[in-house]
């Protein structure tokens, strides 16, 4: 599982995830996600290249999202594929962290 960050205009941090967010994938990025969550206030998680997510992966998204929101920040998910989005919906995570498929709307939601 790869993770990289990019600073966008308006103080938005784009976090690009690439690979399988399975048990090991989640372990590989948990620490980096928590560091980002402790430092950033507007986070766009780019999930276009996430090919798989399970319940451990959901935890990797929800825990940092709680930290960001607890600090008065915002987080959105961008571009999950059909099956990854089905997992987000089945667990109702999509009702807690907004999911966007248009990049501009994802950015707008953070401003």
């Amino acid at each position: 599982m790869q993770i990289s960050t990019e600073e966008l205009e308006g103080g938005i941090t784009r976090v690009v995830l690439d690979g399988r967010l399975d048990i090991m994938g989640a372990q590989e990025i948990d620490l980096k996600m928590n560091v980002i969550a402790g430092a950033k206030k507007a986070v766009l998680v780019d999930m276009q290249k996430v090919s798989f997510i399970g319940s451990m992966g959901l935890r990797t998204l929800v825990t940092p999202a709680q930290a960001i929101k607890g600090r008065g920040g915002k987080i959105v998910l961008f571009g999950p594929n059909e099956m990854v989005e089905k997992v987000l919906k089945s667990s109702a995570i999509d009702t807690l962290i907004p999911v966007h498929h248009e990049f501009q709307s994802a950015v707008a939601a953070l401003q």
Partner: protein
Amino acid sequence: MNSYSANTPAECLTLESKLSEISRVVPPWIERLASLHAISDRTRYAMDLCLEEVLSNIVRHGYACESSRAIIIRYVSQRDGFTLVVEDEAPPFNPLITEDPPIPRSLENASVGGQGIHLVKQFADAIEYEPMPNGNRLIIKFISPETSRAVV
């Protein structure tokens, strides 16, 4: 009690009870099965998800993270699809009687656990539990038209 036997060695997987083994061994095994049986991407994803959740539950709870215990997984073709049969030697536990997690009302109050079996129920077409003399058997069924056509 039913008997489940895999047809070929490729259709049976014996897994060591470590979380890292699930991520390392199971996805390539599913890829081979999907290729062998022309399983659709959606069904392949559902197999992948169900096995990750079921196997990680066995490792963490059934075997209490005790490594070097065995879990056996079999792919069994059926007329209208196939089943994945998962057997362990852990203390008796029926995961299907666990209650679904409450629907979270806010991010702040959301629980980050308890989604595993709930997801399995959503992604599998049917699930059955059978107690075994020395463990547990979970039968996860997938109804997939593309595989039923391939089965003679």
